[in-house]
């Protein structure tokens, strides 16, 4: 297990390096530079040159990459071109908001999606199964910003139950929780569908296995077979899905973050990309990829914990 973890982490680091190299290649290819963007019609060539030098964009790409990693190893991810604040600070300020949003959304999605999937399996072939089936695909198909907009109209504008924007007052848990409800729901909705479908599909497969027949032959009640015997196995692919999903939520939260004016990593990176604020782009991508890779590793280790068969393969 330890050897496996070490191996996975090694691979993860390799992926991290490759992603950064790819990012630098992209930067190299993408036209536009921060000076042109920010200074708009007022930039003088000297000024542009100065900014470009300040960001090291005049150096060869390989040198920039080496520099980046050299600095990253000492915890220095570079400085925001405009505010000159450390990128690490920017990311660390934005990250909690997105993480909380993503985790809450996924937790909600799991709490609703998994039981729905189970219910669907227990009532397979019935109207309930059909309704859950259509609903889950339906909610996947509705773009999250549409959900966001309409819930904003309903709950913030018309009913005034929930705050329209922001992440809540710092330190005020209730206000933060209130500000979380709509964005989390907007993201969670589609995921409820995904998870319910995923759980149903893998559950159907598990339900056909001989050990379920064994459990039935001992007269175990169906709910117990589903919730304990089948779910323990059927949840495993869902865990990988959720792990990958958290990664994609972090970057795709940008629509929802835009609608609810919620400060977060999605907004940070899109803004940075749009203004060609390369140090911020690179630093954010590095941290995001690191998080993504660690989540995937964590999920694999969790799967190994949940499935003793896998666990033993790694032990051996």
């Amino acid at each position, binding site marked *: 297990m330890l*050897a496996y973890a*070490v*191996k996975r982490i*090694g*691979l993860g680091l390799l992926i991290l390096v490759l992603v950064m190299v790819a990012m630098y290649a992209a930067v190299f290819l993408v036209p536009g530079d921060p000076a042109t963007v920010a200074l708009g019609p007022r930039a003088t060539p000297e000024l542009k040159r100065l900014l470009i030098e300040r960001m090291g964009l005049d150096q060869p790409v390989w040198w920039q990459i080496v520099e980046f990693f050299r600095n990253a190893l000492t915890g220095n991810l570079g400085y925001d071109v405009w505010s000159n604040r450390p990128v690490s600070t920017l990311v660390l300020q934005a990250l909690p908001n997105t993480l909380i949003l993503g985790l809450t959304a996924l937790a909600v999605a799991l709490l609703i999606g998994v039981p729905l999937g189970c219910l669907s399996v227990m009532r397979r072939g019935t109207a309930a199964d059909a309704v859950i089936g259509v609903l889950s695909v339906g909610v996947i198909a509705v773009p999250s910003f549409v959900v966001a907009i309409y819930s904003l109209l309903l709950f913030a504008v018309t009913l005034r139950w929930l705050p329209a924007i922001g992440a809540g007052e710092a330190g005020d848990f209730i206000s933060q929780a209130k500000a979380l409800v709509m964005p989390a729901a907007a993201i969670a909705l589609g995921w409820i569908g995904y998870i319910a479908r995923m759980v149903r599909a893998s559950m159907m497969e598990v339900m056909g296995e001989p050990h379920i027949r064994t459990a039935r032959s001992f007269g175990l009640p169906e709910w117990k077979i589903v919730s304990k015997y089948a779910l323990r196995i059927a949840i495993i692919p869902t865990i990988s899905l959720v792990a990958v999903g958290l990664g994609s939520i972090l970057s795709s939260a940008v629509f929802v973050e835009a609608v609810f004016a919620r400060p977060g990593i999605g907004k940070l990176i899109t803004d940075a990309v749009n203004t060609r604020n390369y140090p911020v782009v690179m630093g954010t991508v590095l941290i995001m990829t690191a998080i993504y890779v660690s989540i995937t590793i964590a999920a694999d280790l969790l799967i190994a914990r949940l499935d003793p068969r896998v666990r033993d393969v790694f032990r*051996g």
Partner: protein
Amino acid sequence: MSPLLAVEDLSVTFARNGVLSRLLNPVPLPGFNVIDGVTLSLMPNETLGLVGESGSGKTTLARTILGLVRAAAGRIAFEGRDVATPADFRAMRRRSAMMFQDPVASLSPRLRIGALLTEPQVIQGVPMPDRRAAAKALLALVGLPSSLVDRYPHELSGGQARRVGVARALAMKPHLLLADEPTAGLDVSVQGDVLNLIGELKRELGFAAMIVTHNLAMIRHVSDRLAIMYLGRLVETGPTQDVFSAPMHPYTATLIRSEPIPDPRRRSLRPAVTGEIPSVFRRPAGCEFHTRCPIVRERCKTEAPAYRPMGTDRMVRCHFPLQKGGQEREAFSHASVNQRGN
């Protein structure tokens, strides 16, 4: 007469780790031998039964002989020549054939039977004026209707698939046939079909066969000689009739004794052997069988017995081989009871 196939001291080692973990772990973990020091030979036209329980390495041995698995040590000779390089193995494979345990699984599922049957010729560049006709001829050879040429493998019954397997194996008129569990999963009323077919073709075409199986009842009728495997090693070889009538290795005796007899009047009183088959990962010290052997002695636990000849045509790997009429034989006598009949 020189043997068609000679295997000497063949070992196969499975590495414990992949490339990456070898990079990450500076000290490589030791591999384990799934085949260990196997020596056997096969005469032209002879049928050898390779018998063992699951995990004994019999299938791996068969695959190693044909070069599908790389041997860690030992030597293989085919028709008097050493087989070592990939080219050697290719040459050898052109003169030999293999039948797989699962006949349907060994046929490429998206090809029709006609294409599958003639594929060996196509690959080996044998000129064929009419592929369909050639396929039909092969079907006829194994007693199948020619209408099957357009079928897909999954549309065949178990027996039919087995026959197609035979036809495909014998299409190139090999000198050696390796058959891996040719009757596994077949009903008794059908398994004879396949074996009879192999027997007939063998008489007709003349090839040597090595049949890998765990089915003792079947193999005693179709093989000339037997080789018994336990944990990747041969424990006994000899003419089939002799091995059955007077097994020398306690394991052989155990196997024969364990087979349930389809006669309620001759029920066995107790199982011939207790305990579980150890894993090749944790080979017992000394004689591998000592953990389960009913006549185990102290020496067996520490000292590995040599594989040594006994009499003219027999080899055995045991410190204390069973003698005809010997005392130890009692432990394996087929004690039976007829509960209702007496």
